[in-house]
């Protein structure tokens, strides 16, 4: 059976969990440690914690908070938010994080991704790409929590990240954040075949069939979601949840396994570890 990773993304702001819609209107959804404990019990594949307050407020990661979260995580943990230097990354790895997620620093500190990858291996560096369409319908990359426009095209940006040594891309549609309306399949379709590294779809997941769609139609290697795993129902009542393995197998893994993709690609070798 083909398994894909299904990853909850938690947004932290000054030590509290929040969830946004289109990167705006943050709603308080609870305490991070409590949420991590619940996700632990639910045996999630992997967890991503993003401190959305760090970069906009020009703050370094809250290492003691991260250490506390990592101590409760018996699954892989990715952390992003305020990482500006190799020293920040090192401290995070020592705090128990498996992957550091770089967003704003890709632009502000070119060379950082390469630096971390060559020291800790590509598998430990993730580049997250937040994007939305401009007036002409072209997808452009944003940093600083969607506040700052870079003017760069998503595809070129992703290829540069791969070349620099990123082991994975989280592709996050700002316009679909918190909408439940489905992932941006068109963008995934254009991006995923061009990259050798895994792409994690993010933004817009509303039901399990969206996971399958992102992988079989979009070409994503893994899927992630925020609202879907912290809210229940149309009124967005806070309830930490995660589908059980039986449900995932039935709705996602088995249908994917039946497709039997056999296309082979000639790819260059550029990974470590």
């Amino acid at each position, binding site marked *: 059976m083909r398994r894909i990773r299904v990853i909850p993304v938690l947004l932290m702001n000054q030590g509290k969990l929040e969830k946004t819609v289109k990167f705006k209107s943050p709603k308080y959804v609870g305490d991070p440690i409590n949420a991590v404990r619940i996700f*632990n019990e639910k*045996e999630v594949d992997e967890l991503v914690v993003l401190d959305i307050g760090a970069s906009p407020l020009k703050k370094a990661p809250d290492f003691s908070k991260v250490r506390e979260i990592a101590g409760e995580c018996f699954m892989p943990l990715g952390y992003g938010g305020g990482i500006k230097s190799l020293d920040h990354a090192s401290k995070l790895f020592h705090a128990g994080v498996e992957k550091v997620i770089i967003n704003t620093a890709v632009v502000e500190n070119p060379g950082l991704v390469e630096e971390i990858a060559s020291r800790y291996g590509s598998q430990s560096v993730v580049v997250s790409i937040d994007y939305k369409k401009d007036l002409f319908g072209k997808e452009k990359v944003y940093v600083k929590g969607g506040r700052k426009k870079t003017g760069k095209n998503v595809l070129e940006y992703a290829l540069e990240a791969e070349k620099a040594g990123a*082991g994975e891309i989280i592709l996050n549609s700002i316009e679909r954040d918190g909408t439940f309306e489905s992932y941006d399949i068109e963008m995934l379709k254009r991006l995923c*075949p061009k990259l050798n590294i895994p792409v994690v779809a993010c933004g817009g997941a509303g039901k399990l069939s969206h996971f399958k769609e992102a992988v079989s139609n979009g070409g994503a290697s893994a899927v992630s979601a925020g609202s879907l795993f912290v809210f229940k129902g149309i009124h967005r009542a806070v309830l930490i949840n995660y589908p059980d393995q039986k449900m995932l197998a039935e709705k996602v893994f088995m249908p994917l396994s039946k497709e039997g993709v056999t296309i082979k690609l000639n790819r260059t070798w550029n*990974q470590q*570890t």
Partner: protein
Amino acid sequence: MEHITIIDYGLGNLLSIQNMLKRLGVSSIITSDPKEIANAQKMILPGVGHFAKGMENIHSRGLKPVLDELALEQKIPVLGICLGMQLLCEHSEEGDADGLGWIKGNTVKFDMTKLASHHKVPHMGWNEVIQKKPSNLFEGYAEVPRYYFVHSYHMVCDKEEDVLATTMHGYEVVCAVENGNIMGTQFHPEKSHRFGMKLLTNFSSKLQEKEVNSI
């Protein structure tokens, strides 16, 4: 006091292993001091990163003689995890370096020509394992265990009897080895919640049995 010695050779997320052992009620120390390591009753060789760099660190810290003594002479139980398992073999293509040589075989890159487009490298994510021989490590599982993997290289064993388990990523690759007291997993038990806890519990209790037997 009874504990597991986690070997710190400067690579990898050691805290994750200690966190899980703590949860399991097993005490452990993280150390890079050869004198402290010499007292180990059981050890875990962790590691994430570059093979050649890992071996270089082991040599530069003067750890090779003490590790050899523990594994080959005293025959204390050893569990290599991820890069730590790869280091058990004789040689790796990653950095063209020699390993500890405790398990006959080599570490090679994933063969890209055998992979379909959705088989990305690194092999990153959860996968089920196929057990190849009986082992205490895999005892007591009610269902096929799945574990978290992240690697771009994999081991190829010279001797089939050393292969404890395999997994499928495009093709069948060795993901666990066992030869007497020397064991290794390519996957990360410390990041594989209940399945990993079971394996680390088995590793810890296996050692206790050995101690009982030797009395």
